[in-house]
């Protein structure tokens, strides 16, 4: 049933696999049922989809996979509300709905040749993973890759199973930090802004991409500014309550811009120019 006509009608898909990333975050690998829609389904890092848990509703989730790897669509879902809880109850093989892809995307071509700093907090790290995968798959087109992944506790660090591949990749540095350690943790225990300050990240020919809880973005932003990062060098992806994803239902507006259509990716130059603070 092609439904390019009906923007609110989801495309049917099947839950191929469910991987537990943390006690309350699950990675859902989704396979679109409709063959030609699946073939046409192209998306870029930073874009998002609405995933339907039939019987409860639908919610927007940042895509955490990359299209060029031709695998299933991947979204990381933290169990926090009714739709996410219903999704967490699903077993592989269950039917779900997908709408999208929506929104703009990280300007990967503008990142080319630059040193990339990825700073993600908690589940906020998930929409940044596609940038890492794109860089690792086209390693020589980009400068140094610095990845800072923070979380409340060690077991809350997402994509832990990929840390080794990232850390051993060429010109790539992986730093992890937690707010509170458990008995097995030997790494860094500090808030993300403090780590950014401690590591004295250099703004030269660099871009910093932040995503996480608003409080973390706020303080990381000040640290990056102190290190000399200009507003247009700092990029983030905003979160908003959304219902359509098409820039029409006026639900996710920040001032006169829509997070779902003019975003979710914004540079901080754009954000400070917005009529309404986020």
């Amino acid at each position: 049933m092609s439904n390019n006509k009906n923007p609110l009608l989801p495309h049917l898909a099947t839950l191929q696999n469910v991987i537990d990333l943390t006690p309350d975050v699950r990675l859902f690998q989704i396979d679109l049922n409709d063959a030609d829609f699946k073939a046409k389904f192209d998306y870029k890092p930073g874009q998002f989809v609405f995933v339907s848990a039939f019987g409860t509703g639908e919610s927007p989730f940042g895509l955490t996979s990359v299209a060029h790897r031709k695998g299933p669509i991947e979204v990381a879902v933290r169990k926090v509300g009714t739709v996410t809880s219903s999704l967490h109850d699903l077993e592989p093989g269950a039917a779900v709905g997908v709408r999208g892809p929506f929104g703009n995307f990280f300007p990967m071509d503008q990142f080319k040749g630059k040193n990339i700093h990825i700073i993600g907090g908690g589940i906020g790290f998930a929409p940044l993973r596609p940038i890492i995968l794109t860089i690792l798959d086209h390693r020589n087109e980009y400068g140094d890759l610095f990845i800072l992944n923070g979380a409340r506790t060690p077991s809350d660090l997402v994509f832990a199973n990929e840390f080794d591949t990232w850390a051993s990749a060429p010109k790539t540095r992986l730093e992890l930090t937690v707010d509170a350690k458990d008995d097995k943790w030997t790494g860094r225990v500090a808030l993300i802004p403090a780590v950014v300050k401690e590591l004295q990240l250099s703004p030269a020919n660099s871009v910093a991409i932040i995503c996480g809880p608003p409080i973390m973005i706020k303080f990381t932003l000040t640290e990056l500014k102190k290190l000399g990062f200009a507003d247009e060098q700092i990029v983030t992806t905003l979160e908003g309550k959304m219902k359509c994803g098409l820039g029409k239902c006026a639900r996710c507006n920040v001032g006169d811009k829509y997070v779902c259509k003019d975003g979710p990716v914004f540079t901080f130059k754009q954000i400070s120019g917005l009529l309404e603070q986020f």
Partner: protein
Amino acid sequence: MSKFISKKDLNSWLNKVREGRRLIAPTKVEDLVLFKEISRVEDIASDYVNTDLSPKEFLFPPTEVLFSIEKKDGGVDLTPARVEKETVIFGMRPCDAKGIIALDKPFLEEPADPLYKEHRDKTILVGVACLKACPECFCSSMGGGPDDPAGLDIMLTEVKDGYLVQVLTEKGKALMPDSMLSESREAKPKAAEVSKVPAEGINKKLRQNFEDPYWGRLADRCIHCNMCSYVCPTCYCFDIRDYPNKGKTDRVRSWESCQSAGFTKIAGGYDPRANKGIRMRQRFAHKLLYFPEQFGVSHCIGCGRCVKSCPVNIDIREIISDVQKLGAKGE
């Protein structure tokens, strides 16, 4: 020379139109005048200036099933909802037609909302010009007028024992062919005298005074119910959830208002518009700034319903003139 139809012919026309269609018209409910489905033409109210609620609910209902979800042999089947019957909305005022033009913008702009489109295609709008204005309406300041037929399929203007008729669209002609109408030399009566509001360039002034403490002070009074958005003919915010319905599941869309707490709360609990003043500003910024700049037409049509029903008299006319005066400080 204009067309004319007598009251008697109009009533028999309405009875004929009612067969196989839904006839919606203003009728007295308690001491309100509401648009309701009419079973007897005599129930149609005539001594009203405008209805308490707008006809929006017949194109964008308070609650509607978008599609139903049926789990069948391992898979899932989605059946979009359809609009079966044609509807005739009779007795609308020109401002409500302007409201529907504004409502068309978000819903019919590509990619269009097919359910709204079906409602719209299957609805015939029959308006009656205003010979008397409400004390709180100001349509002529917002791009409309008491006798402006824009958006209507048929426009009636009451004269002695009948109506002057303007058939404006094919849909109107199909329902009211010229053969039914007689000629009349009756002069068109003077349209109602509508109060003015200084809405010119309000979007620029609003942009300049976005951070003014005016909004915080205004929000003191507001109790943040959903009434202004629900009585407004052009507000279109909605919420979507699934509901079990006899074995199947319905995806339901219902009205929602930007004034209720939690309207913009996101997962994890952060709410960018938890502050009452910011929520208040959002309503009037969307009405007078964002929507006009995105869709090129005013989102407030000056019907005055929010002015009339607001429990604490948050009056958009007063706000427009206040914000215009605020402009002095800006650039």
